[in-house]
């Protein structure tokens, strides 16, 4: 029986993860060869789900997120009669990672859902009045579902990018609000309703509730494009875009979301084992600016329109 006690690199990596990682950090590099400040290869593809009203597939390294938008009609509430809503849900199904079991959504997924929802429904980022069909009568609700297909760390950045791309990919169909309040996209039904209205006028019947309201087909657009970067802190080193293996070794994470004007949309540092000095926070903001320049051309290419001012 072999009595060799030397561990090969894979076994060392599994048994002493912190020591293994430290050896790379001391050389200012990471096990996958990236320097500390570099993010993984990113790709964005819009229209990935043909049946959805808007969709996008985003890959950051191995982390893969697919976002789809489904539109439905709702009656707006009285205090928000001229806006629609965007309902964001981030889901991590068991197929994305060995550590995810089916059942209750993970805290990570719920946190991501809430934060993306806050960003995308802020009036300075997305104008919800675009989703209005007829004030007080009908409005669109966009169900934005983001599924993780492969969780290799940093699902938030990928989820936000997928959400932004999917929402910008949505084309609202042309619909008509009929007199009786029904909303339909079917031109035959519209013609029938018009004919009925004419008959009603001829026989002297009272015209039904309202008048017809037509809306045209239009593309949704964001007022500004938020793109985020998540960094981790390990022994004082700032690491951009941590993968799953690295995420387990971090002392804390900092996520900065910027828009094209360089304004901060969000700075998120949830507790953690260490605090962050102002210098580190400024470094994160600077790295986010560089990340913005990297990623925004990908979005522009995919959505075919200029978004930076």
């Amino acid at each position, binding site marked *: *029986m072999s009595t060799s*006690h030397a561990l090969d690199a*894979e*076994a060392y990596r*599994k*048994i002493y993860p912190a020591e293994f990682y430290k050896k790379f950090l001391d050389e200012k590099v990471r096990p996958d060869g990236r320097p500390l400040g570099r993010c993984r290869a990113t790709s964005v593809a819009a229209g990935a789900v043909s049946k959805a009203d808007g969709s996008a597939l985003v890959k950051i390294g191995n982390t893969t997120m697919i976002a789809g938008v489904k539109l439905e009609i709702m009656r707006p509430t009285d205090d928000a009669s001229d806006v629609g809503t965007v309902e964001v849900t981030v889901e991590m199904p068991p197929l994305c990672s*060995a550590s995810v079991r089916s059942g209750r959504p993970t805290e990570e997924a719920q946190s991501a859902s809430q934060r993306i929802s806050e960003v995308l429904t802020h009036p300075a980022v997305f104008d919800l009045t675009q989703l209005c069909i007829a004030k007080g009568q009908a409005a669109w609700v966009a169900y934005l579902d983001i599924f993780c297909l492969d969780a290799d760390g940093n699902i938030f950045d990928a989820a936000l990018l997928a959400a932004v791309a999917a929402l910008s990919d949505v084309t609202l169909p042309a619909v008509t609000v009929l007199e009786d309040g029904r909303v339909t996209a079917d031109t035959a039904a519209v013609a029938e309703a018009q004919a009925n209205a004419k008959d009603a006028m001829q026989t002297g019947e009272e015209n039904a509730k309202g008048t017809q309201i037509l809306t045209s087909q239009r593309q949704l657009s964001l007022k500004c494009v938020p793109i985020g970067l998540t960094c981790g802190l390990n022994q004082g080193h700032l690491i951009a875009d941590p993968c799953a293996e690295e995420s387990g070794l971090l002392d804390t994470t900092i996520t900065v979301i910027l828009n094209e004007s360089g304004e901060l949309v969000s700075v998120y540092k949830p507790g953690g084992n260490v605090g962050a000095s102002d210098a580190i926070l400024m470094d994160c903001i600077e790295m986010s600016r560089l990340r913005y320049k990297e990623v925004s051309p990908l979005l522009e290419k995919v959505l075919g329109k200029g978004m930076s001012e």
Partner: protein
Amino acid sequence: MEGKLVLPGENICPISEFDVGEGTFAREDFVCSALVGYVQIVNATSAGQASTITVMRGNEQTCVPKSGDIVTVKVVKINPRLASVDILCVGQRVLEESFSGIIRQQDVRATEVDKVEILSSFRPGDIVRAEVISLGDSRSYYLSTAKNELGVVSAKSVAGAQLVPVSWQEMQCPATLAKEYRKVAKTA
């Protein structure tokens, strides 16, 4: 026959010629493949054993610990009767997800098994080399460290420094020079 690509269920050879090996099973006097892979012949290592046929996939398949394997484990919990561990590596192969195992008080060493104190043999966080003695009960594999070359391979002291082995049952902290008791593995 060696190097041939086979599919699951495909007959390889009669069971009289070769024995069943990894990636194969026996069905009606034939050795059949259980995986998609290439056939390899493993010669008998000792007298009295037949050569075996194995089917190997290109990359590593998920391996499961079996009786007789030397495994590397990390101690998770201890109580007076046993030490609960996570199996990290089987031989040199790293497991994607750990299995759980236990080292019972009577399996820690070969002599004076009833006088063994788990607290003086293992502590949570220690890395231990052990042998799988059985598939165990419904929850964990049964492991044993009852050989000289099995036992604690690496441990941290109370002060946080890496302990250095002194004898088969003591390790010393280089920072505070305090000695701590462990069942130490004999290194070559």
